């Protein structure tokens, strides 16, 4: 799932303060699950902004709303008419949503209230962690299912650097050294030989945007 964290409130306030009618617009899919940008968070943010506005003595009308997903235009089409009555949409969707809404909304600005982060797993309640970098060229079959691109601070492909430290990364003791994890897992899988093979420099072309792809079946149906 796509994860995101709300921007610092001051930053959001500075985006909003010069507008007169603002909609805080939530997305009820990925960012709702990470408690950052669903309808509930949009409501909370709207409330905080209203209080800030009243404290600053600025008259802004601030409301909130949310739809299922911002990354498919059909979901926000039904509320488009209402949305267009605002002079700023503060989106709590991920960056994808902000882009797509901007494209569809005409001349009303759409600002992000979220810093979109990564594809995350939820190993424990309230904890989000990056396990895949979306590099477009998966090698997990070579690394015991543990991604060195996403999980090694240097995205190394041939083993740990000298900074590996009792299973932790030199960057932070909280980061596990991906290559120690890979080594242990490969050993368990009896696949250490595979790890001894030199991995060639990565083809990064697939990781560089703008990227898109088409689903063939759907293309056929359209035809």
């Amino acid at each position: 799932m796509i994860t995101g964290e709300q921007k610092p409130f001051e930053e959001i306030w500075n985006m909003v303060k010069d507008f007169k009618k603002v909609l805080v617009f939530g997305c009820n899919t990925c960012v709702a699950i990470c408690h950052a940008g669903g309808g509930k968070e949009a409501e909370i943010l709207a409330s905080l902004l209203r209080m800030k506005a009243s404290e600053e003595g600025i008259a802004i009308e601030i409301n909130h709303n949310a739809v299922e997903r911002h990354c498919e235009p059909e979901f926000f089409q039904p509320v488009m008419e209402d949305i267009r009555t605002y002079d700023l949409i503060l989106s709590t969707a991920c960056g994808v949503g902000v882009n797509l809404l901007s494209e569809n909304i005409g001349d009303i600005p759409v600002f992000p209230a979220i810093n979109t982060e990564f594809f995350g797993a939820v190993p424990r309640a309230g904890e989000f962690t990056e396990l895949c970098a979306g590099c477009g060229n998966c090698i997990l079959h070579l690394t015991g299912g543990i991604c060195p691109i996403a999980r090694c601070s240097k995205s190394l492909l041939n083993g740990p650097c000298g900074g590996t430290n009792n299973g932790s990364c030199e960057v932070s003791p909280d980061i596990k050294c991906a290559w120690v994890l890979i080594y242990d897992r490969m050993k368990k899988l009896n696949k250490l030989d595979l790890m001894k093979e030199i991995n060639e420099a990565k083809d990064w072309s697939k990781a560089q945007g703008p990227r898109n792809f088409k689903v063939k079946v759907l293309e056929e149906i359209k035809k």
Partner: protein
Amino acid sequence: MSFRDILDSGKFAVTAEIGPPKGTDIKEMYHHIEVLKGKIDVANVTDNQSAVMRISSLAVCKIVLDNGMEPVLQMTCRDRNRIGLQADLLGASVLGIHNVLCLTGDHVNAGDHKQAKSVYDVESVQLLKIVEGMNNGKDMSGNEMKGATNFYAGAVVTPEANPLEPQLVKFEKKVKAGAKFFQTQAIYDMEKFKSFMAYARKFPVKVLAGIVVLKSAGMANFMNKNVPGISVPQVLIDEIKAAGKEKALETGINIAARHIKQLKDEKICDGVHIMAIGMEDKVPMIMERAGLL
């Protein structure tokens, strides 16, 4: 004799580090070059060490060369992509620099530009392969180049990494990728190092043991706690403590010299790489006490 020839001849090699400064004032660096010239075999020029921005390694290598010493160009993968790295390798080659130490490089997190975007387009093993390819007249994409390079390529290894096994996997990959010589992370425990060398000797590579002078017991404790792959045995810490604050550095120098002498006398490895870290002046003294001068 070139660095390659020294090592091939079986002579005990000594290298030391030259750290390029931040800024254009290079008086002190010149001084270090003067002090080391004629004493050590080659000077190893660091590449934005610890991810702290400084004069480029390539430029300083050229200065070292012009001042009569043979340089080793350290090259990390942090700051340049594969195009930049190859371009600089060609540049080094035409400037007469023929030793390259291929490193992945410390993370930007350790340095003074923490917000920088790390590159790591390729990493040490792949860089070694690039060097090998260029020595054969081909760039990384397999294009023929007009004129090949002739690099003597090296790499680093941490004999006391924890856990060690994945580190050794990588060591072997580096050998396979074309590393001819290795410098190690600082070592203090001779017995452990000997067992590492027993393993390393199985490969056709030269190994220079990393030597870092202990300045105090505090520094030793700090490194034990904070520097991955370094472990200073308690007896050495006790030795420095016993000497008292005044004589700590003196004791540290003696320990370094003692270790170097043992490495040479017992033919444990092929040379040493002294990382003076701001004490370049003291390198001749260490060498003298180790019986190398």
